């Protein structure tokens, strides 16, 4: 089963995986847009999520082994996936992968640091749109002027529809890319604020 969901709070995300396990869905993997689950016996499973990027495969291997020794099965994650998903296993399962608030909070600071280039990149795009005439509100008021196909608006029927559909993607890229730049800027700024709040809450 695939489920679409998105979380900022890693502890809430882990608790959500635990609730699905109680309904008989065992977490298998995570993609960009959602989570994959396997049908399993309904029961209590404890999940915990860490965030860490590794330089080498040997570093990643050593990390997974330490958790394995301490009673955690590495369910999903890779050397560069950042997010690492663990499930408590064994007769006397551990209840958490963190024993102090500082290490719990350091995950959010690491995510914020790794996503900082997105904020910087979208800020550059938005600034360049704002100052280089990318945002042309006068042209927006007269959308027909945004189309460059000669005589497009005098056409009718199929020739008009074909010409219109053909040029529309180019119009969107040429005249509305700044909307995308500002949306990216908004989303990445919002993310940084959320992560900062979460690191404060946990630490």
């Amino acid at each position, binding site marked *: 089963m695939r489920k679409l969901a998105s979380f900022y709070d890693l502890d809430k995300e882990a608790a959500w995986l635990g609730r699905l396990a109680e309904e008989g869905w065992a977490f298998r993997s995570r993609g960009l847009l959602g989570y994959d689950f396997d049908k399993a016996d309904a029961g209590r499973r404890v999940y915990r999520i860490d965030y860490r990027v590794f330089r080498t495969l040997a570093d990643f291997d050593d990390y997974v082994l*330490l958790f394995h*020794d*301490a009673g*955690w099965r590495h369910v999903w994650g890779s050397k560069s996936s950042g997010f690492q998903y663990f499930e408590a296993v064994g007769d006397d399962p551990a209840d958490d*992968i963190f*024993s102090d608030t500082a*290490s719990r909070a*350091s995950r959010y600071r690491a995510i914020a640091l790794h996503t900082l280039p997105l904020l910087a990149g979208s800020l550059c795009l938005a600034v360049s749109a704002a100052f280089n005439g990318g945002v042309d509100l006068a042209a927006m008021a007269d959308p027909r002027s945004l189309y460059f196909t000669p005589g497009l608006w005098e056409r009718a029927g199929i020739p008009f529809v074909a010409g219109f559909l053909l040029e529309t993607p180019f119009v969107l890229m040429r005249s509305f890319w700044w909307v995308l730049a500002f949306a990216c800027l908004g989303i990445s700024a919002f993310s940084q604020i959320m992560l900062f709040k979460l690191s404060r809450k946990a630490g």
Partner: protein
Amino acid sequence: MASRDKHLPLTETAFYTLLALRQPAHGYLVMQKVKELSGGAVSMAAGTMYGALDNLQRQGLICQVGSPDGRRKTYQITPYGSEVLELDVRRIEHMARAARESGGDHA
């Protein structure tokens, strides 16, 4: 104390981790030793332990050594780490002595 080492005072977890690494050990062994050395008072979870080893290594207080178990990294305290640990022991001894000498109530 004019110029104190920038890593002082050590946190309780850093202190016990350094103490445990006077003998070479891998991460899980350090977790067990910390619990034992602290009389069960300090119990470090896997993620916290991994982060602590990472930090102590970056600060130059511990280093990796050749390990008998090839896949698990083995660490040991560095000479600088021993120095910092010793300074912290003296700091703690001084605090305890100050508390005892300043009045019976806190003995």
